[in-house]
């Protein structure tokens, strides 16, 4: 791998902010984004004029969304860019901000994500002119229903054991005021309303609107601006990979995650089993199981029983998706990856209240996106 600049210049998350994830409403994306950005600045205790650059993760808004929004904090003339990387857009915004600070080009950078649904995802791969056999029959929830079928068959796991992921994440989301879904659910409710294969409505993430923001800063900026060092969370590594070719029937999504996470944990000098708190891309319940194994927290086939027995609950050996994850917090696309890093920061500060993982020291955030990409960040209190 290329140089890990984050090991050479200490880089921190010093501020976080959200606009609640919610169903599509009349609220403009400008209001959503400004709410999150202002909250992040206030949380860091800095001024907008201290910010030297901004990256805005968005996949659905169309071109040119950032300046009309962020200029309402003051038209300071700083560089801004929209960042699109499918579901990982907000993760890539954070990655760009980290690289810019770690490289020494800037000391204080805003990374954020904002999106509103516009009916369909408009994904480019469908326009590549490559025809396959399935036509329009395989939409994302069916892709993951097929992976659930494979997983249950290979490991002798039941549909209820897969659904236990959703039970846990809805429970976590009930303690998160920024979550789109804030209700504790029963297994009966989780198993109702089949969508595809064993995937039910409550095992599929809601795609609504919202915004998330983080302020990324150098150690020098913390000193110079008088930022509270005890609430700064260090970013140890930031790794992005794209899909390679795998054998017939081999799980692309899990293989890509394993490769990306392996590089990220190596760069951070962290053993995945040391991770206290992990936000994982659980757009569909089965994904949390596949990725938890691919991330190296346990062996293939073990995640289902570990989730069911509470090992990945808040207070367990590692809290998985403490925010409620994509399943309960929601997946508004652009904000999601930034929101994960904000949640991990909150957890590593010990400020997560009722959903606090006790004594959390090391955290990680993992997103995948169609196309297919994977982004992993490793953070330390």
């Amino acid at each position, binding site marked *: 791998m290329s140089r890990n600049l984050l090991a050479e210049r200490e880089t921190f998350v010093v501020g976080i902010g959200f606009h609640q994830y919610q169903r599509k409403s009349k609220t403009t994306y400008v209001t959503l984004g400004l709410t999150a950005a202002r909250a992040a600045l206030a949380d860091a205790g800095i001024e907008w004029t201290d910010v030297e650059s901004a990256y805005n993760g968005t996949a659905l808004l169309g071109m040119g969304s950032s300046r009309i929004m962020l200029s309402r904090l003051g038209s300071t003339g700083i560089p801004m860019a929209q960042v699109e990387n499918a579901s990982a857009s907000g993760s890539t915004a954070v990655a760009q901000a980290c690289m810019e600070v770690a490289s020494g080009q800037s000391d204080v950078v805003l990374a954020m994500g904002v999106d509103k649904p516009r009916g369909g995802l408009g994904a480019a791969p469908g326009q590549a002119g490559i025809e396959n056999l399935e036509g329009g029959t395989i939409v994302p929830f069916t892709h993951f229903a097929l992976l659930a079928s*494979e997983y249950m068959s290979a490991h002798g796991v039941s549909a209820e054991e897969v659904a236990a992921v959703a039970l846990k994440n809805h429970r976590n989301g009930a303690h998160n005021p920024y979550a789109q879904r804030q209700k504790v659910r029963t297994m009966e409710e989780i198993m109702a309303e089949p969508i595809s294969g064993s995937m039910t409505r409550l095992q599929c993430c809601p795609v609504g609107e919202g915004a998330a923001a983080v302020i990324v800063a150098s150690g020098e900026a913390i000193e110079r601006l008088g930022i509270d060092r005890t609430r700064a969370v260090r970013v140890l590594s930031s790794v992005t990979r794209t899909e390679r070719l795998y054998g017939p029937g081999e799980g692309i999504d899990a293989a890509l995650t394993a490769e990306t996470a392996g590089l990220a944990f190596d760069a951070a000098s962290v053993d995945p089993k040391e991770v206290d708190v992990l936000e994982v891309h659980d757009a569909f319940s089965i994904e949390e199981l596949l990725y938890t194994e691919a991330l190296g927290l346990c062996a293939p086939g073990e995640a289902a029983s570990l989730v069911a027995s509470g090992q990945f609950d808040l207070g367990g050996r590692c809290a998985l998706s403490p925010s409620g994850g994509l399943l309960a917090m929601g997946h508004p696309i652009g904000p999601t990856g930034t929101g994960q890093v904000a949640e991990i920061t909150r957890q590593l500060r010990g400020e997560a209240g009722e959903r606090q993982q006790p004594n959390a020291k090391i955290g990680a955030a993992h997103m995948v996106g169609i196309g297919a990409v994977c982004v992993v960040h490793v953070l330390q209190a």
Partner: protein
Amino acid sequence: MQIGPPIVIVGHRCTRCERVAFPPDPYGCEQCGAEADQLEPVELSARGRIHSLATVHRHHDDAMETPFTVATIVLDDGPSVKAVLIGDLAEAAVGTDVVGVTEATGHDDDGIELLDLRFTPAGALSEAVTS
């Protein structure tokens, strides 16, 4: 379901790295980067084994009648495909052998019948042919 001569699926083989893939690709080889003129059509047998399957209960396209069942199928000739399963699926499971069949899906503007490729359990098909 229409049963005729064995169906072949046309994929491509890269003449530079020998990778066999489906679907055919107009751009280049994903393994070695050879350009499209170095990819040649290759016939793949429409026979394989179910790797995973799911019955779809809801679909955003109202024109698609639910429920229907889809599967990931690893073809005997290598590549894996995803396709709709039809026929008697009572015994269909991961590991079941399947073969390609055609199904009429409507007519084009000139009134010509359109056929689409589906898969069906091989055991059920051989019973259908012999009975």
